[in-house]
């Protein structure tokens, strides 16, 4: 288990006041909130910040944590000394932010699992505390090819489950998910009952939001595939038939004569199509001019300059 420096995570000194801890947390939470910050590391940072705040914002936990003094460095192998927590009572508190279902082992070992989180409706029934499990919102990165032809994916989730002695523990579980043909970025798959388990209540749901992985060739705009296609000046001027890559393989594209740089051509229905929606592929021509290196090539360009009364700046 690695030691976590919660002060370092929040960018605070050991003697920072509760007020300033809160300020630091708020500022970082805004910055790294996964809805705001699209950096893939943001979610991890956000969780870490939440965990640090959960400890440092709680006077009891902070005091206990401070007992470790400054001898420990972040990332160092760590085992808590026996009896380190005598005299402290960690009441379970609710922090309640989305997305953070699993705190680090470090936290779990020291503070015995975070408070059981509930969504909106914890009710105290005749059998005591009852709550439905938390929904899990996660992003799933898929390739354009996955969506183009439909696919399936096994995902592993760290779920918080009730372990021995009613302690909450993190438990990896894997799940096979079908990705329907034509699913696109921003769309979601809801898996009922695959969220966190409830306490005397039903499990929450799992929501997977689709994110497209960056493709080496194509860009994507909703269902449309965008491709930049380099062409030679003679192909653009005389017209040509060029084989272009699409998600479904190579396709003949007809370049009309006298095409200019930046011209957009459409391959209908070659984008990401679903049962009800059709996507197209758009091709933007990029005219590349061959460098003139030999005498003969230079002569040809000179001949062109005489033959064409062409000024691109007119």
């Amino acid at each position: 288990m690695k030691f976590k420096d919660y002060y370092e995570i929040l960018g605070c000194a050991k003697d920072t006041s509760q007020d300033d801890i809160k300020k630091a947390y708020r500022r970082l939470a805004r910055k790294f909130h996964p809805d705001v910050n699209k950096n893939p590391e943001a979610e991890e940072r956000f969780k870490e910040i939440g965990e640090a705040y959960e400890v440092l914002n709680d006077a009891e936990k902070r005091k206990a944590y401070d007992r470790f003094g400054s001898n420990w460095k972040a990332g160092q192998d760590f085992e808590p000394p026996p009896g380190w927590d005598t005299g402290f009572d960690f009441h379970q508190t609710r922090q309640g932010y989305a997305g953070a279902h699993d705190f680090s082992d470090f936290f779990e070992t020291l503070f015995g699992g975070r408070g059981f989180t509930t969504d909106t409706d914890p009710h105290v029934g005749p059998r005591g505390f009852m709550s439905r499990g938390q929904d899990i919102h996660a992003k799933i990165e898929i390739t354009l090819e996955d969506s183009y032809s439909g696919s399936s994916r096994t995902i592993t989730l760290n779920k918080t489950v009730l372990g021995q002695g009613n302690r909450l523990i993190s438990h990896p579980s894997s799940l096979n998910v079908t990705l329907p043909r034509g699913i696109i970025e921003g769309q979601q798959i809801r898996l009922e009952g695959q969220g966190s388990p409830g306490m005397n209540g039903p499990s929450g749901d799992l929501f997977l939001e689709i994110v497209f992985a960056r493709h080496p060739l194509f860009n994507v705009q909703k269902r449309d595939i965008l491709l930049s296609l380099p062409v030679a000046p003679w192909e653009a001027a005389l017209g040509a038939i060029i084989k272009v890559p699409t998600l479904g393989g190579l396709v003949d594209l007809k370049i009309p004569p006298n095409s200019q740089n930046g011209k957009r051509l459409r391959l209908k229905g070659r984008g990401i199509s679903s049962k009800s929606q059709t996507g197209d592929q758009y091709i933007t021509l990029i005219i590349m001019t061959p460098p003139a290196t030999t005498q003969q090539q230079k002569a040809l360009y000179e001949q062109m300059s005489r033959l064409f009364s062409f000024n691109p700046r007119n």
Partner: protein
Amino acid sequence: MNEDCSYTVFDESTWISLSEVCRFCRVDHQHIQEMIQEGVLAPTGTSPQDWRFGVQELKRIQITIRLQQDLGVNLPGAALALDLLEELELLRNLTKNLDIAG
């Protein structure tokens, strides 16, 4: 796919009712009404009974709730952040496409 697990895809053909949206997002009708008044949501239909919400609306509700819960912003604040986030995403997409064209 686990056989015993109900599986729903939210795409362009998804149009969900007010009670479904409340169930999926774990919010009450009141909260959704407030979001509509704030201009965060514009469902189709004229009365709450025939309101229908699309996948984009669903996402807006989820983000609004997360911003409210996680950052402690009020509804107008979350609405403003949401608008700015969407504009940012649009611009990011534009520059990404410029990158490739350039």
